[in-house]
């Protein structure tokens, strides 16, 4: 029995209540998706580009870049 400290005894657990749509873990998927209508704006890509750039900087700055070498390359 999962304790629910905020609900009175006998009340339904919040995770068990859902909407009308198909549920995931008892929760309506309706609340998990963006509302339709109009052309949705694409998600900004700069964090992705920044991550890739950061990884390349870190890999290039390391004294020995073993992990970026192909497996057949001799170890230095």
């Amino acid at each position, binding site marked *: 029995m999962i304790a629910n400290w905020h609900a009175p005894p006998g009340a339904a657990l*919040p995770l068990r209540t859902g909407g009308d749509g198909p549920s995931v873990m008892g929760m309506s998927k309706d609340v*998990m*998706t963006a509302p339709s209508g109009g052309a*949705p704006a*694409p998600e900004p890509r700069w964090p992705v580009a920044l*991550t890739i750039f950061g990884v390349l900087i870190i890999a290039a700055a390391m004294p020995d870049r*073993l992990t970026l070498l192909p497996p057949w390359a001799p*170890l230095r």
Partner: protein
Amino acid sequence: MPLAGVTLASGKRRWLRIERAVLLAAATLILVLTVVALATLIRHIIVGGPERLGGLELLTSSVVSWVVNVAGFALLFWQLDAGGPRGRTTGAKIRPDWLFPQTAPGDAAPGWAPGYVDYLYLAFSTATAFSTTDVMPLTGRAEILMILEASIALVTMVIVASRAINVLAN
């Protein structure tokens, strides 16, 4: 290139498809190479090689392995969950692979969808804690991916990094 294409073309479907294919292929290739490099490092530690690896080389290699592991899995999570960025933005009814706390009943923000930073955080916390934190996997492939990421991070930290610190301390 694909990232710039999506941004400049305001999310045209063609560029989104190209971006998905390129990033999935790149992330998979990077992660496979990381596993191979990690295996090579461990073999070198245990069996030895033509030259002895120094502590600094081991430490820097483990840092790069860990960072690449986090970044690669962040890209994979971002592209796979609920149809990728396109599926989430258009509100396509695709079953999500992860349950984020922002979508919990009572705290749900209408129209909220996870972004890349949320997946970067998920990958970072999985590699740091070796387990789930506040984001729950809902599907088998999500669980398998998290097992893989945690395993790579665990091997990197426990074997390679600890050996490097041991060598440096001596």
